[in-house]
């Protein structure tokens, strides 16, 4: 991104014949550039610094206090007590376990499902564009709308789910989907899949379309079976996209809130609670802002450390590839 010689040499206003950078004009150019840079970046920096970065720092600070969030700045300094309490809190440990289960379910079921559908919709099937659009549609709806809709679907007497089981003669499987601690997490995962598989599918479709058909054809001509073509050609070429979609799913699960809040508020007896719900509960319902902040900080640390490691060890080659790929495209 270096500016050309013509650019460098020109003072901002004067119309002159371009010449190699001279000292005085170069300095003036530099000054106008500096003013432009500062003026143009300032609004973004102020907004971002004040409302995105400051809260992180503020949370780290208040997490060291016992504070109800009211009546002036926090004063009751308790060091890392909030954090020690956090890691012996059964509810919070449960949150971590729920996140792990949801991530595992996503990686094992939802993403392969999305991948299969994506590959299917790259075949010559009538109406595949319509199906792609349809499958992506739930992603556009807010989590609250999806949550309320499925609260009704899962409702014990009038809900669709139990009627469906009745229809196929499996009345015995009908249950209270959102009130049974043993089931609720899987109901939640069902809604997550409904809402998000289309998003992952679209990512995979885009990646699949970027693979030249010649490569697939070459594999077929060389005698590879469809499965071998998929396993040794398509899948490795989709690798970068799959790794990004896993990344997004993990980060999204760590921060899951709206859906849970609307569907179950984390219940019954914390069986579907997530870190964000626990944080919200302590911060806004029980007025333990210091403790809530500690949960925020831990959520941030988990996301951050995960992102760092994941990008360092899993996506490193992809990122390099992406950069060179972008250069090729231009």
């Amino acid at each position, binding site marked *: 991104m270096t500016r050309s010689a013509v650019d460098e040499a020109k003072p901002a206003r004067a119309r002159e014949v371009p010449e190699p950078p001279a000292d005085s004009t170069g300095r003036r150019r530099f000054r106008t550039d500096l003013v432009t840079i500062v003026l143009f970046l300032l609004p973004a920096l102020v907004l971002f610094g004040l409302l995105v970065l400051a809260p992180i720092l503020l949370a780290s600070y208040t997490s060291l206090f016992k504070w109800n969030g009211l009546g002036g700045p926090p004063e009751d300094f308790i060091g890392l007590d909030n954090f020690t309490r956090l890691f012996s809190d059964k509810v919070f440990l449960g949150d971590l376990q729920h996140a792990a289960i949801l991530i595992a379910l996503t990686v094992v079921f939802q993403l392969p499902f999305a991948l299969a559908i994506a590959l299917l919709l790259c075949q010559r099937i009538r109406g595949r564009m319509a199906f792609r659009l349809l499958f992506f549609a739930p992603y556009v709806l807010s989590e609250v709308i999806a949550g309320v809709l499925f609260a009704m679907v899962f409702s014990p007497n009038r809900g669709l789910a139990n009627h469906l089981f009745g229809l196929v003669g499996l009345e015995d499987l009908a249950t209270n989907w959102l009130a049974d601690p043993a089931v609720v997490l899987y109901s939640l995962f069902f809604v997550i899949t409904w809402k998000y598989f289309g998003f992952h599918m679209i990512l995979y479709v885009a990646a699949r379309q970027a693979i030249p058909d010649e490569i697939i054809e070459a594999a077929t001509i060389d005698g590879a079976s469809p499965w071998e073509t998929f396993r040794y050609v398509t899948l490795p070429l989709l690798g970068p996209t799959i790794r990004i979609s896993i990344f997004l799913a993990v980060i999204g699960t760590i921060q899951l809130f709206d859906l849970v809040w609307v569907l179950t508020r984390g219940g019954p007896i914390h069986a579907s609670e997530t870190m964000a719900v626990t944080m919200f509960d302590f911060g*806004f319902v029980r007025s333990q802002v210091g403790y809530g902040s500690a949960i925020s900080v831990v959520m941030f640390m988990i996301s951050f450390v995960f992102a760092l490691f994941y990008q360092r060890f899993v996506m490193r080659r992809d990122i390099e590839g992406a950069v060179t790929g972008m250069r090729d495209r231009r």
Partner: protein
Amino acid sequence: MKALPSGPVRPGGTRAVARNTVLYLIVLVVGLFVVVPIGYGVLGGFKNNGQLSNNPFGLPDPWIFSNYTDILGSVTFWRPLWNSTVIALATTLLCVGVAAMAGFIFARFAFRGRELLFMLFTVGLMFPFAVAILPLFVLLREFGLLNNPLGVVLPQAAFGLPVTIIILRSFFRAIPSEIEEAATMDGCTPFGFFWRILLPMARPALATVSVLAIVTSWNNFMLPLVVFNDPTQWTIPVAVSQFNSQYSQDTAKVLAYVVLAMVPALALYAVAERQLVGGLASGATKG
């Protein structure tokens, strides 16, 4: 999305037909998985609760329009709709305006610390509301922005900056530097170049990030939930959630409200599908 032909086509025959039928069946089943809950909502809104218990799958008999008409005739639906619209437009204007200026600098100026600053913004990608909401609430209270639409607009714009800057920067970079040189030679100031040449040229990218910002704002729940105490200020997601708690026993009514609340988002999707799909996919993968 373009309909690119893909996959080698095998010669026809009964095997191919059988295979296609199976594939088609799979797609149809998945289609049902997506459509049935929504269809249940749409039809359920035309039933009463007795019908929902006794006649879950059939068409409403008789059709009951009062659920929908009651809501459409009530301020509890139109006011949040209006609030959501105003907040989404204000957020988008602010976010895209500020991000375009920053993206311009990041794309076309070289200065020390540029990459570091840019990285600071990209880190913000991993830092969503859920993590920041508590301290953000404390800050907004100090600034006196609670129960004020600005208390939602400003943070939403700030949190939208990373994605918007990343997408716009890569677009601005792709505009040939010859154009900038020509403009500068003709006496264009950096601002003149930005305003009269870069922004008009970047219209497709601006459309993408704008649609993205509108949808994000439209669907945001946590922030308006804590900022607004006054029901007259609620946005659609908050109103839907409250309606659900208030009428939790009246399934049909809640379904009607949810279905109506879906309409604006689905309408936007129908109109701006290309920007939306492209923006969401590229926004997600470029981070």
